C-alpha cells in the first residue's frame, strides 16, 4: 500500500503553514501504508485541538469525540470489536491535561491501542495558553509572568505506571518517526508515542531549531527492556532522547482478559442475544 491511499481528496486543512502537524500526518500515512492496514479496518479516535483534527485528514473511520476523551472511546471500541486497529490521537493539552485521568488508567488497563500525542508544549487551538508540557518560563497570554509549574513528563509517568510501550519522536526525524509509529501500532498492548511538534504560531520557545538542538536519538545500546534505565532516560530534561524508551511484551492485554472473548472471538455486534440463557436465569429464580 502507498501513503497516498490514505489521502482524502479536496480537503481544507485547518493547520497553519509550516506546522509540525503536517509532518505527523505524513509519518502516520507512511507507517499505515507500510503496515498495509486497510482504512476499513482502522479507527482513529481523537479529542479537540489542532492535533485532534488529524483523523479528518486521512482515509479512516473516525470517532472525533470530546476534548480529553479519546482514550476511553478508543478502549471501548477495541473492547467491542478487537478486530479493528485502533489509534487515539490528540494534543498535549487534550491527552495530558483534560484527559490526564484517562491517560493513567488506560495505561493500567493496557488495551491494544496506539496513543499518538502531538506534543507542541502549548494549547494551539485556543491560542497559545500553557499546556501541561510547557516549559517553565514560557510566557503566554495567560501565563504572563511565565509558566511556573513543573512540566508534565509523559514518558516518566507512563513508565511509572508500567506502560508496555513508551516512545518519543520528533517530527523533524521522518525515518525514525515512521519506524517508531510502526513499532507502536504493531505492539500488542498500549503504546505511547509522544511526538515533539513545533507550533510555529504560538510556541516561539520550542521551535524546530530548539528541538533539533535539544533532542538526540537514544543509542543503540539502550535496553528498552529495562524499566529503571527507561525511567532514568525519561527524566533527562536538558536534551530529550528520542526513540523507544521501554517495551515489555509480558503485560496482559485488556480486551484479551474480558470474559466476553474467552470462547467467542466475534465482535459484539455479530453476536445474537442469549435468549435461552436469559430464560434459564429467570427459571432459576423461580425456585427456592
Amino acid at each position, binding site marked *: 500500500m502507498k501513503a497516498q491511499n490514505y489521502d482524502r481528496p479536496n480537503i481544507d486543512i485547518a493547520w497553519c503553514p509550516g506546522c509540525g502537524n503536517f509532518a505527523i500526518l505524513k509519518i502516520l500515512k507512511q507507517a499505515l501504508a507500510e503496515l498495509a492496514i486497510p482504512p476499513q479496518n482502522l479507527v482513529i479516535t481523537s479529542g479537540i485541538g489542532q492535533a485532534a483534527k488529524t483523523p479528518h485528514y486521512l482515509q479512516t*473511520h473516525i470517532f472525533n469525540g470530546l476534548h480529553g476523551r479519546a482514550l476511553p472511546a478508543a478502549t471501548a471500541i477495541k473492547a467491542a470489536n478487537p478486530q479493528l486497529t485502533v489509534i487515539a490521537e490528540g494534543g498535549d493539552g487534550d491527552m495530558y491535561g483534560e484527559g490526564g485521568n484517562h491517560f493513567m488508567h488506560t495505561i493500567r488497563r493496557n488495551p491494544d491501542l496506539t496513543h499518538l500525542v502531538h506534543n507542541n508544549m502549548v494549547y494551539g487551538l485556543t491560542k497559545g495558553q500553557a499546556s501541561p508540557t510547557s516549559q517553565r518560563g514560557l510566557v503566554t497570554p495567560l501565563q504572563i509572568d511565565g509558566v511556573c509549574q513543573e512540566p508534565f513528563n509523559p514518558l516518566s509517568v507512563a513508565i511509572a505506571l508500567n506502560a508496555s510501550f513508551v516512545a518519543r519522536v520528533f517530527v523533524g526525524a521522518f525515518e525514525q518517526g515512521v519506524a517508531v509509529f510502526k513499532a507502536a501500532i504493531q505492539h500488542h498492548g498500549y503504546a505511547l508515542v509522544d511526538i515533539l511538534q513545533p507550533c510555529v504560531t504560538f510556541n516561539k520557545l520550542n521551535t524546530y531549531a530548539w528541538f533539533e538542538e535539544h533532542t538526540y536519538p537514544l543509542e543503540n545500546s539502550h535496553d528498552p527492556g529495562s524499566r529503571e534505565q527507561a525511567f532514568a532516560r525519561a527524566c533527562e530534561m536538558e536534551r530529550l532522547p528520542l526513540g523507544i524508551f521501554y517495551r515489555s511484551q509480558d503485560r496482559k492485554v485488556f480486551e484479551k482478559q474480558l470474559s466476553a472473548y474467552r470462547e467467542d472471538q466475534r465482535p459484539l455486534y455479530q453476536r445474537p442475544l442469549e435468549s435461552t440463557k436469559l430464560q434459564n436465569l429467570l427459571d432459576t429464580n423461580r425456585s427456592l
Partner: protein
Amino acid sequence: MHSSPKKNLPEDICIVLGGAAGQGIQTIETGLTRLLKQSGYHVFASKEYMSRIRGGSNSTQIRVSSGPVAAPLERIDLFIPLDGAALTHLCPRLQAASLVLGDRANLPAYPGLIDMPLTTIAQQAGDHRYASSVTIGAVVGLLGICLELLDDYLQQRFSDHPSTIIAGNRVAAAAGYQYGQKLAKTGTMQFELKALASVTGDLLLSGSEVIGLGALAGGCNFISSYPMSPGTGVLTFLAEQADEFGLVVDQAEDEIAAINMALGAWYAGARALVSTSGGGFALMSEGFSLAGMIESPLVVHLAQRPGPATGLPTHTEQGDLQLALHAGHGEFPCLVLAPGSLQEAFSLTRRAFDLADKYQLPVIILTDQFLLDSLTNIPALDLHNLQPHQQFVETDTDYARYRLTASGLSPRGLPGHGAGLVCVDSDEHDEAGHISEDLVLRTAMTDKRLRKQSELLQDAIAPQLLGSDDFHTLVVCWGSTYHVLREALGALKGLPVAGLHFSQLYPLPPQATAWLRQARQLLVVEGNATGQFASLLEQAYDCTVEHRILKYNGLPFTVEELKQRLQSLLDAPD
C-alpha cells in the same frame, strides 16, 4: 397455615426488622421473602439504610399479603428490633396492635416487648452468629409456613459452607421455628393470609435486578460505570452475568470515562449501558451532549438519591428530574423514561435499548433508591420476540453517516462492517461526518437532529389512568410513586378521584391531554421539594396544578400518609 377463612382478619401483614448494618437484616430479608413467596404469599420488601458499612440504624419492611402489593406502609404489624437504636428509631410508628418481638437481653426496656432470646437460642445451636437463622425460623413459624421448606432453603443457602455451619443454622432455625409456632398458638397475632399455588412459581426480584434483566433482554452487552449508590446494584448484577452472557464490564476510573466508553462501544456496534446516580450523571453531562451531537444511541440508568452534591447517599428522592431533562449543553433530542413498577422497570429498560438504537439518541431510565432496593414477586417478565432490533447497516463506499433525511434518521454504519468509512464528530459536521463551519449546513443538521424528537412521539408511552374515568380530581404521579398512589386511591374509594401515572417524561406523551383537560382539580405527587414534574406538566399541557404533594426527607411516601394528604385536599364531590 390457616385454611378456614375467618372474618375481618387482615389479609396483609407488615413486618419490620430494624438493626445496625452488619446485624444480618439483609440475610433475614432475603430468607423471609424467598420463603414467603415460595409458600404462596405475595411479598414486597423495601429498605431504609444508612451510608455506613457497620453500625447505624437500618430497617427493612416486608409486606406479606394475599394479593399483590408493592407500596410501603406506615403501619407495622410485627416489629423485630435487633438493637436499641432500631427501637428508638421506629417506635413512633408502632401502634397498640403492633407486635414487638426482640431479644430482651440486647434491648432497652420496652412495654409490650415479647422476649425472643435470639442470642441464647443461637448460642445453644452453636454460635451467636446463627441469630439470623433463628429470626427467620421464628417468623416462618409464627406465620405457619412448613419447616421443611425452611430447612431446604438453609441447606441451599449455606451449601458452600462447611457442614457444621449448615447444621448449626438448621438447628438454630428449627429452634426459632418452634418459638414462632408457640407464639402463634397464643393468638397474639391474628391474620388471614391466603396462599396461592400460582405465586410459588413467581419470580422474586429486586429493582436493580429487573433493570439488569431488562438490559440483558434489550441486548445490552457492554457496561461501563463508576460505582455510585444507588446505581451500583445494576452494575453488580450485570457483572455477575458477564461470564455467562459474554458481557464486557468495565469499572471506569470516573464517570466521564464511563460515558465516553459507552459511546465508543455503541459506535463499534455494542449495546452499552451506564448506571449512575445524580452526581455521577452531572459529571456525564458533557458526554450526554456528545451522544446528542454524534447521534449515538446510549442508555443511561440514572438512579436518584437525595441531593444536592453528596446528599443522602442511601436514601431516596425524585429530585433529579430537571437534570435528566436538560443535561448537556446545546439542543438535541433525548428520551426520559421512569418506570412505576418492577415489571415496568424491566420492560422500559428493554425497550430503551431498542428506542435508543432506532432513534439514535440517548435514553435515560430514571429510577430511585426506593424502587431499586425494593423486592417483590412477579409472575413473569416479557421475553417474547427476544431479538434486539438492531438498526445498523452494512456500509458501501459512498456511505455518509449523517445523510440528511426527511425523518432526521440516517442509516447507522459500524466501522469494519462494510466498505464505507464511519465518521462521527463532536463538532458540527457535514453529511460524511467531517468537521464543518458551513452555516447553512449548521441549520440543516440542527433541524435534522431535532426532527427525531417528533418522530419519537410515535412511540410515546401513554400515561396510565389509575381508577375510573369519571373523576373530578386527577392526581398525577411519575416513576416509583405508581404503587403508593394506586393503593392510596384504592383506599379512597367512592370519591371522584383518579390517578394518572407517567412513565414517559420526555418528550411528554400527547395522549395525556384529554385526561388533564377533564380534571377539575389537578394534584401532583412527587418525591422532591419543588414539584419539578408539576412545573413541567403546567408548561407542556397548559394546565394548572392546584397542589403539589411533596416529600423530600429521604423516605418514600407511605400509603397511609399519601391517603391522608390526598383526603385533606380533595374537593367535596358535587
